[in-house]
């Protein structure tokens, strides 16, 4: 079976913390997702996401703080949201499935949601198949 | 049976690469001749899905020599598509800028490309180039270089760039004409007018009388009895920017007159597997192959044939002179295209001068933003080389869904092929082809001013023409190659 490679950019304040909580609560999820912890999803830009693809990722997951008010830096999550939305709008023009990018708001307490999102996303990408290989 | 093939390259080009291929039968008589467009960029395909209002700045890249024609035709298509009638001021500013472009293109072609053929020795390629011209006609060349600066300057004031301008918006133009702009433009145009007149005089004095030109002008092989098409205004006068498309037959009888949006009723396109360029034809006639009776020509000569008159004094005088000299309207002699170019340039200067004194051009309402979109628009202008048609359809997001572009060079494509065969058949017997014959073949094509003529021309400028004729057998194996190089 095709094992997708997925990079997850997690905001250290929410999704990252949720991942910690998931561990502490001994929840289990797909190991295909490798987390990279960023100070804020506002640090992420389309180029970074596409670099992940170019280097062999089949999907990119972005976990940030809930809008409107949870962002540790006030509105970094909105920046990420806008950038990702515009990128996803463009991908089909290149024949790339926008479903390969997913952005989710996951608070530090939502370990369950984190697990659900990771597993869902993994199977989505599995269905889509490899991006390039 | 094994045919011999003569391939000539380079040929003066349209936007893209072209070559001439001539087939000889056993006796070495010309069996067939083709003028091929072998380069293609597919604008009609990749313009789809674009923001429709952006097209006027995208399609200019179809041709860097007549980018203004594409810019404005596109702009007019967009006006109709958005259902916005441009304001009077906008229309006048557009036409003003466009007149400068007509002069730009005509001068470039006449001096840089055509002239060497007629005032320099046909037999000596070494001489036949601008270097040679500089020696023989330094004044003309200096005037020419000066004229470049002037037209460029005028085009810039409107479109920012002289090539690939940024000027039209849906229902108008982007910028008003300031007083300073006006001063510059009128100053330049006055000088331009004197240059154009001088060049026209020079034509009548030196070129018209030149052995070669005179000979070819009246030569039956360099003449096609075809239909003609071109824009005329309400009064039936010559107009480059707007009006009705009029078609006349080879006796000069009007067979059709219609508005842009009706063009599909009158024009269709034929496709040949051996060319990337299509062959537009008149629906009322139908596609009947490369036969002069059934094909249609556009461009300077066609326009002067189609129009009842030229709405400017000196130019209409010059037209009278041309008609008297060559015979009667419609004029079928292809070489008259060159003369027509000069007459049109003169007219452009005169008209510009008139328009510059119309206070409308200073009004503030340079754009009309109201109107009901039709999502379907046709824009037609007379490009320097003839009728140019842009037709777009858009979806509700105003993304281009269909793009159809018919260029004048495509319309003349059939004529070029037809005349080519005529000329080749007369000149070529067997494989004994030389530089002179070659050029005589090219002169025929060149009178239509295919778009990138200026480019190849500059080989002459470099004083370094590399012309070659390769003769193949029908399997494409090279039998013989003659090339003409200097130095």
């Amino acid at each position, binding site marked *: 079976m095709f094992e997708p*490679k997925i*990079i997850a950019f997690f905001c250290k304040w929410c999704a990252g*913390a949720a*991942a*910690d*909580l*998931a*561990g*502490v609560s*001994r*929840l*289990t*999820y797909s*190991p295909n997702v*490798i*987390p*990279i*912890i*960023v*100070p*804020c999803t*506002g*640090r*992420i*830009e389309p*180029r*970074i996401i596409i*670099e*992940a693809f*170019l*280097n*062999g*990722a089949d999907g990119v997951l972005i976990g940030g703080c809930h809008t409107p*008010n949870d962002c*540790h*830096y*006030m*509105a*970094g999550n909105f*920046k990420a949201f806008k*950038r990702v939305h515009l990128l996803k709008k463009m991908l089909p023009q290149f024949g790339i499935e926008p479903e390969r990018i997913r952005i989710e708001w996951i608070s530090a307490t939502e370990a369950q949601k984190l697990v659900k999102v990771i597993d869902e996303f993994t199977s989505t990408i599995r269905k889509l198949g490899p991006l*390039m*290989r | 049976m094994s045919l011999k093939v003569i391939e000539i390259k380079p040929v003066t080009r349209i936007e893209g690469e072209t070559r001439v291929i001539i087939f000889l039968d056993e006796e070495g008589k010309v069996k067939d001749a083709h003028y091929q467009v072998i380069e293609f960029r597919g604008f009609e395909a990749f313009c789809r899905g674009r923001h429709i209002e952006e097209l006027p700045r995208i399609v200019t890249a179809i041709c860097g020599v007549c980018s203004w024609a594409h810019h404005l035709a596109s702009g007019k298509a967009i006006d109709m598509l958005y259902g916005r009638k441009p304001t009077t001021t906008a229309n006048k500013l557009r036409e003003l800028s466009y007149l400068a472009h007509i002069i730009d293109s005509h001068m470039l072609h006449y001096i840089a490309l055509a002239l060497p053929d007629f005032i320099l020795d046909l037999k000596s390629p070494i001489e036949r180039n601008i270097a040679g011209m500089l020696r023989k006609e330094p004044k003309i060349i200096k005037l020419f270089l000066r004229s470049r600066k002037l037209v460029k300057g005028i085009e810039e004031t409107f479109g920012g760039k002289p090539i690939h301008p940024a000027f039209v918006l849906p229902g108008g133009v982007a910028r008003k004409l300031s007083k300073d702009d006006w001063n510059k433009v009128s100053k330049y145009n006055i000088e331009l007018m004197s240059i154009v007149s001088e060049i026209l005089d020079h034509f009548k004095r030196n070129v018209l009388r030149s052995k070669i030109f005179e000979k070819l002008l009246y030569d039956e092989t360099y003449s096609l009895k075809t239909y003609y098409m071109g824009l005329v205004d309400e009064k039936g006068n010559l107009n480059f920017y707007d009006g009705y498309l009029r078609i006349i037959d080879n006796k000069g009888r009007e067979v059709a007159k219609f508005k842009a949006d009706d063009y599909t009723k009158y024009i269709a396109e034929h496709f040949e597997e051996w060319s990337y360029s299509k062959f537009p034809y008149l629906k009322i006639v139908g596609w009947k192959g490369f036969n002069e009776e059934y094909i249609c020509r556009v461009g300077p000569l066609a326009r002067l044939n189609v129009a009842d008159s030229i709405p400017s004094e000196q130019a209409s005088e010059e037209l009278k002179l041309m008609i008297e000299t060559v015979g009667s309207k419609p004029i079928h002699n292809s070489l008259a295209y060159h003369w027509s170019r000069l007459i049109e340039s003169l007219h452009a200067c005169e008209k510009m001068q008139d328009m510059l004194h119309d206070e409308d051009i200073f009004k503030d309402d340079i754009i009309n933003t109201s109107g009901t979109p039709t999502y379907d628009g046709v824009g037609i202008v007379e490009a320097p080389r003839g009728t140019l048609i842009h037709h777009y359809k858009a979806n509700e997001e105003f993304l281009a869904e269909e793009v159809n572009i018919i260029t004048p060079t495509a319309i003349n494509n059939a004529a070029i092929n037809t005349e080519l065969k005529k000329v080749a058949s007369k000149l070529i017997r067997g494989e004994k082809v030389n530089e002179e014959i070659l050029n005589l073949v090219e002169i025929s094509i060149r009178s239509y001013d295919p778009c990138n003529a200026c480019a190849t021309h500059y080989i002459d400028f470099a004083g370094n023409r590399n012309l070659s004729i390769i003769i193949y057998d029908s399997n494409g194996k090279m039998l013989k190659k003659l090339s003409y190089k200097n130095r």
Partner: protein
Amino acid sequence: MGEPRIGVFICHCGRNIAGTVDVEKVAKEVAKIPGVVHVETYVYMCSDPGQKLIIKAIKDKKLNAVIVAACSPSLHYETFSRVVESAGLNKYRFEMANIREHCSWVHLDREKATEKAIRIISAAVAKVAGNKPLVPIKAKVVRKCLIIGGGIAGITAALDIANAGIPVVLVEKSPTIGGKMAMLSETFPTLDCAQCILTPKMAEVARHPNIKLLTLSEVIDVEGYVGNFKVKILKHPRKVNPDLCRLCGLCEKVCPVKVPNEFDRGLSVRKAIYIPFPQAVPSSYAIDERYCKKCGACAKVCPTKAINLDEKEEIIEEEVGAIIVATGYDLYPGTKLSEYGYGVYEDVIDSLQFERLLSAGGPTKGQILRPSDGKPVKRIVFIQCAGSRDENHLRYCSKICCMYTAKHALLFKERVPDGDVTVFYIDIRAAGKGYEEFVKRVQEEFQVNYIRGKVSKVYRDVNGDMVVIGVDTLSGQKIIVKADLVVLALGMVPQLDRELAAKLKVPLDENGFAQEVHPKLRPVECSSSGVFICGAIQGPKDISETVVQASAAAAKVIELLSKDYIVHEPMIAEVDENLCNGCRICIAVCPYGAIEMVEGKAKVNEILCEGCGACVAACPARAIQLRNYTDEQLLNMIKAVLRGAT
């Protein structure tokens, strides 16, 4: 720093990690990564022997960067960075790789977990290789606080801070502090007299050694940033020297100019030289420039020569480390509610005017008399939500009107036991300790007639009675009430002009109230660090809430100013001036206003920057980088994670 010499220390965490992750295999793989010169595994890396082994390795192997692959940084980042530092290595050359919470604890498949652990560590290695040794940013703090607004909020904050030993500059635009509260008679729900609880605090402000009080003053310019603000204050001339004024009142008697008294909301008149109210602080008369005719009569009679008609305004400059904005509220202009006849009929008044009627120190010495003819009021109508919760006026609820109207009704019945009181209301909002009880008491004990409904019109009939027409939304019946006096419970509007707000970098919400960073977690902080808000400028609230918030703001200021230095994380954005084109895109993206254009180039204020990286992603010239989280590092991390994927 030379070639990277990275040491990776992998923790078994007992069975917690080693149970699912093949630590030895990880060690073997990680050792292959270029730059890694030393790999060690240990059962409990955080234990004392674990820490010692790291220190030893750093020294013996001359490591210049360290990775500890163990649990979540939230647990042991501090622990290990101290370890690293103690070994003489810059702590920013250390990173943790979380292979427990993010790996061993959440996966069952040993092989896959091991694989993932390797990738997580590779990423950490890639990052640390690019980390620069940094030192925390230190900035001196000016140990002084500016408070704008001398109402109960400003007074409370000023006293809290001053009592903590921190100097305070209190700026008030009117001649006295006290604000709106000074105008009130009694306060709900306890009904204790406003003056009695307020004036002692005002007096305390006046004599407090740590408080510099500037009345008749306004802040006109603010520069700088947290810890180091430079403030310009415009002080209008009082023309009476407070130190000499004995309040004898002679001047007032001789002054020829009469003007409406704003303290009584126009229900009385005062002179051009006046004292707003007897307990005003500073305790002194003042000359109202706008009206004074400079006749000099007052100066002649003043026994202490306290009056100087030529006194000029002056600009005072202060350096402060923190700013509290407590500019409070004003009443929504009643004149905008034409249907209620405010400003047309003298006997339609607003709630503060009614407070003045109730007040013993007020124009009627506490008697309830009609402004129009001075007759005692028997029938009175209160209209709640006058302007509030109204699409055409104020969308929001002004929160205190229900309570003060109930209070008004009660105080009226106490003074006029046989009077009729009608209250028109939409809902009663009485959330608060003892509030609901209070309203019930008013409704039942004092038989105040509460009508749930909206008033459509107020006018005066031929007999001179005020007629109030409304609809009872419960019964649907039209209701007509005749009254001697109509009181509008006007809503609250914020009192901070946009210009000053902009200078203070205080964001305003759509209603013009100051926007806090977070409604729940950071209710008194502003997005511009070092600026705090409290009281009604942050949103409608009553006195007790205001006082609570003021003390909260004070606590924040004390926290900030009790240090000599602000120590700031050095992982912040920095601009490459050669690449910056001054396109201004980064400015709006920064949530802290930390970026400004200096000579056409973006400049990051390193104290204000919190290092979120939003500007890095936004800069079209790639002129901005985040220290120790550069594009290059992020890219290398991605490559490391995906090694062998293509």
